[in-house]
């Protein structure tokens, strides 16, 4: 993948996501403890039906755990998560998560997509459109695990989109990728967002959050320190921790 220009967005080939009816998200008094030690506590969060939310914060703040809680991969110790009237576990089938390190099946690139399409009962003919969409059509027959980091992540993203999710979670999906790969991933995410997919991403990349996010949730020490519109967050953060984080100072 050399440039964004090679990503052919084919809006007619990939069905548009229906208006997400999993939204709004309402989280109340969410807490998570491991062996009695709280890693997340008192998390209250309301997210609207559209756009992209960035979850930011220093390492160990609980960003990825919050994402996995919202997705239903782990169960909270306290509190509740409500996706438009459904629990996180019930809503999981209509969400997709892209991990920081993509877990690719030991198959060809196309077979990775085909596997998800079959598992979700979606038309297998969508495979080519999805590969086209993420710029991997030329590599359809190659072994997936021989792809470069950026290509592998685009395949993981295509696989996530193959589930036709209402909500797309990205857990530091562009960490350790080169700028061109980051940009191509962001283009795909922005396209998904524009087609009505609700995006919630964890990122350390302030530039990426500026480019993608409509609002920012800033976590520190397992609590939400700040949740505001991206423009407000980056121009006038309300908390010292967020200010220090944005200024590159050490936040403990």
């Amino acid at each position, binding site marked *: 993948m050399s440039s964004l220009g090679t990503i052919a967005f084919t809006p007619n080939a990939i069905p548009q996501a229906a208006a997400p009816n999993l939204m709004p998200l309402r989280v109340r008094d969410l807490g998570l403890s491991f062996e009695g030690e709280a890693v997340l506590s008192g998390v209250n969060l309301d997210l609207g039906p559209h756009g992209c939310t960035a979850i930011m914060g220093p390492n160990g703040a609980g960003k990825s755990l919050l994402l996995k809680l919202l*997705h239903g*991969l782990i169960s909270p110790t306290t509190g509740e998560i409500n996706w438009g009237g459904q629990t996180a576990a019930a809503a*999981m*089938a209509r*969400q*997709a*998560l892209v*991990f920081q390190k993509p*877990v690719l*099946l*030991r*198959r060809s690139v196309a077979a990775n997509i085909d*596997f*998800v399409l079959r*598992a*979700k009962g979606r038309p297998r003919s969508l495979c080519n459109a999805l590969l086209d969409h993420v710029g991997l059509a030329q590599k359809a027959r190659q*072994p*997936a*695990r*021989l792809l470069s980091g950026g290509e592998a992540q685009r395949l993981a993203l295509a696989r996530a989109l193959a*589930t036709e999710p209402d909500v797309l979670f990205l857990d530091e999906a562009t960490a350790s990728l080169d700028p061109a790969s980051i940009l191509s991933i962001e283009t795909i995410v922005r396209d998904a967002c524009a087609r009505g997919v609700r995006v919630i991403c964890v990122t350390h990349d302030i530039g990426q959050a500026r480019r993608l996010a409509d609002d920012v949730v800033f976590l520190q020490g397992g609590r939400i320190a700040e949740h505001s519109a991206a423009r407000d967050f980056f121009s006038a953060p309300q908390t010292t921790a967020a200010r220090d984080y944005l200024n590159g100072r050490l936040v403990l």
Partner: protein
Amino acid sequence: MQSIADAFTLALQLVLSGNADLFEIVALSLRVSLTATFLACLCGLPLGAFMAISRFPGRGILLVLMNALMGLPPVVVGLLVYLHLSRSGPLGFLGLLYTPTAMIIAQTILIAPIIAALSRQVLEDLHMEYAEQFRSLCLNQWQTVTALLWDARYSLLTVGLAGFGRAVAEVGAVIIVGGNIDHLTRVMTTAIALETSKGDLALALALGLLLLTIALGVNAAVQSLRMSARRQAYV
């Protein structure tokens, strides 16, 4: 008593001359052991996969039992199958004793635990890598098991090979339930035991050579498949 060198010469002559009796024994050995391996895989792989992805009370005890069964003594298996298939046994009416089918049953019982235990380990390791992704995709148990079995296919070939190796090399079970009857249930290992006891080392050595060649050939084929898969990062 022939010298070992003479026995080797005779063995080579037997192999090269295409001795019909020799190849009949080899063919039966392959038929019995390959069928047993196939049947053991049919039972053992799903069981291994189920054990790899399931968590339930008593699983630990079951795993210990499964691993212990890998060391089943062939003569004990042979004896148990014999007791079931003998005329006075519960399955005596089937008339299977001293037939290749009885030998297949005994070898299947012998190697199914090996296939199950080894595949459980292979699939559990793979599942650790895939588990979170599969849960995120909301795959059901059937989809998870089939995906794991397919993705671990090259590693499972080695598991199958271990089972086949055990089957084709064992003598205790097949001699009890097969009876080593000429032209009916005589396989390589039982023939080697018989010919050695008779002092006819040539046929014994010829069979031994063939057994080694088959083992080497099957191993080489599986190894080359695995290497090709490794080049494509499928292992």
